């Protein structure tokens, strides 16, 4: 009977210990879970990044080829045109560092500049996060929102859907730009803008005269195809930048979580040892008092 009481006492004491330590234990458990999650997110992002980077190489060559005409013919929009368009490329998911906020910042400063010069600006949001960042302050400038971006790798079909919506929307823009995150390396990307030109701007540009045998139909087809190409290029670069940024963000989150776990484990052990020591001292001094 004494043995059973003894066991009961030990059991109750242990339970009492853990009760006493519970805030630390709870915190430790939750941070360990978070670390598991961020680690797995990092691996998923790493896999998606390597796939995106592989398909970026031909897409980049393709994009520069598509824009070669505009650069070689030195097409510039006349200064007095009023209707601008900005296509902002981001995605639906967060936890990727400053990807969405850098695009949103660039767009906001561009709008401020253009509105200050008296021009009309409309925005096409590719990605829900960008909509969330822009609609409160610049809601009246938003023309089109695109959702379900970023879950699967972007395809030419996605780019053509966006281009079709834009052309069907009836907004006759004179010139514009696409703001996207250009991929530089695994740890760095840069927010960049590439110009877009409308059919009229291209047709009336002075250097176009040297191009032979072009009728309006051919030029319109060519323009639409080039628009899809540029959007596709922006999507591909953005996806690669986003996955690499998510990889680095989750990596540093995991490291921070590890540090916190180490510190908390030390605190937990110290507290546990202190409680045991206190109990022992009480028992010993109690026995000594007998």
């Amino acid at each position, binding site marked *: 009977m004494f043995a059973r009481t003894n066991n009961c006492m030990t059991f109750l004491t242990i339970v009492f210990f853990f009760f006493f330590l519970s805030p630390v234990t709870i915190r430790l458990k939750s941070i360990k879970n978070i670390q598991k999650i961020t680690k797995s997110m990092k691996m998923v992002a790493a896999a998606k990044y390597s796939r995106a980077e592989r398909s970026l190489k*031909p897409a980049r*060559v393709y994009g520069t080829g*598509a824009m070669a005409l505009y650069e070689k*013919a030195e097409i510039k929009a006349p200064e007095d045109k009023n209707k601008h368009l900005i296509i902002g490329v981001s995605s639906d998911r967060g936890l990727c560092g400053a990807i969405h906020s850098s695009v949103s910042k660039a767009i906001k400063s561009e709008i401020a500049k253009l509105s200050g010069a008296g021009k009309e600006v409309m925005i096409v949001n590719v990605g829900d996060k960008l909509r969330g960042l822009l609609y409160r302050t610049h809601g009246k400038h938003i023309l089109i929102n695109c959702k379900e971006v970023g879950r699967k790798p972007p395809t030419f079909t996605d780019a053509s859907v966006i281009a079709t919506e834009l052309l069907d929307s009836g907004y006759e823009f004179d010139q514009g730009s696409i703001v996207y995150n250009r991929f530089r390396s695994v740890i760095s990307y840069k927010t960049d803008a590439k110009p877009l030109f409308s059919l009229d701007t291209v047709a009336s540009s002075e250097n176009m005269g*040297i191009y032979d045998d072009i009728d309006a139909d051919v030029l319109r*087809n*060519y323009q639409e195809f080039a628009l899809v190409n540029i959007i596709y290029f922006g999507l591909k670069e953005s996806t690669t930048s986003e996955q690499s940024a998510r990889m680095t963000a989750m990596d540093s989150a995991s490291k921070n979580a590890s540090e916190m776990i180490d510190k908390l484990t030390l605190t937990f052990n110290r507290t546990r040892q202190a409680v045991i020591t206190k109990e022992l001292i009480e028992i010993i001094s109690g026995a000594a008092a007998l």
Partner: protein
Amino acid sequence: MLSNGHPHAAWAHCSFGLLCLLQVFFKEANVKQIDVPTLTGAFGILPAHVPTLQVLRPGVVTVFNDDGSSTKYFVSSGSVTVNADSSVQLLAEEAVPLDSLDLAAAKANLEKAQSELGGISDEAARAGVLISIEANEAIVKALE
């Protein structure tokens, strides 16, 4: 670029890029001639061709290299740009080397598309089937 007074005979090659969405076949390669199928007809591009923009139709692109050999690719659609400095960019939505296409499969697809055409009345769907017929016909013609 236009005003540097280069005599045209100095250009012996086109700097050619054949790009499709998934692959780069040629990039700034020096070639002698390129035959392209466009909406207004097929034509060949030699160095010092007059600058132009064209839209491609489904068909065969033949590239004649410097050493005289030629390679053929089938393109689905896209655009071709010839610039003043004799650089040519052929941006194809899909492009495959001709020998990777199967004649029997193309014929089967063509027959299926032709039989579908009879049963569709919706404009947009009709356009889709007509495009499929045109593409398959071009493949069959190219492979025969």
